[in-house]
């Protein structure tokens, strides 16, 4: 019996692998910006040779991991208050913006074929509208042929910044939704099936006829899923695309927002997309691994400088230069390297 050899081999392996102790930069959190972070990380690896590992586990999970300091940085779609951040020794800054779109899986319905407003979308997600041929839906879409099918509601099962922004918007425009469901990253949904992450929701909608979901636009486009248009606060029908997201972002006043604590949902403007979202990075001011923290900042600096066109390709909106310079001067300076 080669027991001795097995034992010895195990020991040698254990010792030799521990030799390399240096930490890679690893991040975890929101799935909303995951496509662009992964794309940046891939390009950055090719450009600089340094790896940045990002896992889309949900905003809630990302925040818990950064509080436990098991990752170098966290991604989150929910801006936190200064008090919350200070208590945990964290700082936050906006990294990129994008938009949430409703997606549907109905035969013969393509992208932008349907239009919804906050009221009907809220009623669907609070369980009030149950079928596709409901009067409220046919009134909005007189030309579309809506089937006599039950609406299969798909929502998130995990703590999600996408859900936070989605419910923030619906609560702002739909009283009934506000009372029944409310705003939060995880709410007690009265209806529906839970999917994990933006990808889980997209996947479920793709697999289920007659379903509706909400995801970041990149997830809908990559997947060929039919997104809908929305009626915005000005009463205009808008398509989810770079220009309408940008219109909403333009109205945002980052200069006044304390600790960048700003939600972009339901911004005014005739061509503004109502569910525009800024997504944030959270990092500790005093990292256990200063080397990793410095490496992470280098990556973000690179992404701000070189990531703009990649972001546009995936329909994300880069942060305006004024915000970037404020991030660098006011936030990054607090991080000990």
């Amino acid at each position, binding site marked *: *019996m080669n*027991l001795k050899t*097995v*034992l010895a*081999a*195990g020991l040698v*392996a*254990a010792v030799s*692998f*521990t030799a*390399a*102790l*240096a*930490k*890679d930069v*690893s991040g*975890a959190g929101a799935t909303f910006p*995951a*496509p662009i972070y*992964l*794309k940046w*990380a*891939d390009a950055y*690896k090719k450009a600089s040779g340094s*790896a940045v*590992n*990002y*896992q*889309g586990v949900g905003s809630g999970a990302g925040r818990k991991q950064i509080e*436990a*300091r*098991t*990752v170098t940085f966290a991604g989150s779609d929910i801006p936190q208050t200064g008090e919350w951040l200070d208590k945990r020794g964290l700082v936050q800054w906006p990294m990129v913006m994008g938009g949430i779109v409703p997606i549907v899986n109905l035969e013969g319905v393509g992208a932008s074929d349907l239009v919804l407003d906050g009221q009907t979308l809220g009623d669907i997600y609070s369980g009030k509208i149950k079928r596709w041929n409901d009067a409220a839906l046919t009134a909005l879409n007189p030309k579309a042929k809506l089937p006599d099918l039950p609406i299969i509601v798909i929502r998130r099962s995990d703590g999600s910044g996408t859900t936070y922004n989605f419910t923030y918007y619906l609560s702002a425009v739909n009283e009934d939704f506000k009372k029944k469901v409310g705003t939060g990253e995880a709410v007690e949904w009265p209806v529906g099936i839970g*999917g*994990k*992450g933006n*990808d*889980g929701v*997209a*996947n479920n909608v*793709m697999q289920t006829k007659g379903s509706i979901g909400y995801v970041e636009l*990149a*997830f809908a486009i*990559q*997947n060929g*899923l039919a997104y809908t248009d929305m009626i915005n606060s000005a009463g205009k029908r808008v398509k989810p695309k770079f220009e309408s997201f940008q219109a909403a972002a333009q109205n945002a006043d980052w200069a006044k927002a304390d600790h960048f604590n700003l939600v972009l949902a339901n911004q005014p403007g005739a061509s503004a997309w109502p569910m525009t979202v800024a997504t944030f990075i959270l990092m500790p001011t005093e990292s*256990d691994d200063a080397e990793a923290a410095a490496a992470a900042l280098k990556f973000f600096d690179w992404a701000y400088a070189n990531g703009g066109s990649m972001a546009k390709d*995936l329909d994300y909106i880069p942060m305006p230069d004024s915000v970037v310079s404020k991030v660098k001067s006011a936030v990054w300076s607090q991080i000990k390297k």
Partner: protein
Amino acid sequence: MSLYASRRRSNLTAMALCLLATTIGIVWLFLILFSLLLNGLPHLTFEVFTEMTPPPGETGGGLLNPIFGTLMMTVLGVGIGAPIGILAGTYLAEYGRYSKTTPTIRFINDILLSAPSIIIGLFIYGIVVVPMKNFSALAGSLALAVIVIPVVVRTTEDMLLLVPNTLREAASAMGLPRSHVVWHVAYRAARTGILTGVLLGVARIAGETAPLLFTAFSNNFWSASLMKPIASLPTTINSFINTPDANMKQLAWTGALIVTLAVLALNIVARILGGTKKQS
């Protein structure tokens, strides 16, 4: 006559149902294998084994880093778990065979053997990941080791108990110390059986996902460090199959095919080893 006919009829019906049950039972296996082959085989190329996992929105890429991660953690998990399991099984069968604590330990081992693997993940998260403040391949390997131990304890004990006592008595009568009797006589006689147990342990952990979710985490890039998060085939399948990205989904199916074939092959090898043992 009518009584005989009705007895015959009920017997025939019952046996037909048993045959049907068996057919359906086997059909499941082939259905699952068939859909894995259908979805995974067309893209089982050389690149899958040589290239890293791709980011979303691109074509190509492979599964090199998760395959390596799975191999590394499986080897380490077995490297840690199997020796402990073999030694514990040795105690139960050799030294403590008539001890009062042995049935208790055996019972506890059986409980561990069937403990939900997600709970083992929670346990390792609490005692390794949180104090080290880092997801790591080490934590993943330890979680897998905890799963291997009871499998190996069980088979080692069973196999050692099958070794005839006359062999041990003969060796002892020649003046060999007990540890030598165990090493040179009992282990030698039970060798294939113990190896079968280790192989079954490998097969069990190679496809485990739940205990790795909060321990090894995952990694988009290559890592061979024990102290960093690492990708593994099951966790990569779990995240890729849930993406809308067609290329990544395709890789998930291919990965699923690889993992399943590897695990089934291990099971078959273990069975062949175990089978020859029984006949000899």
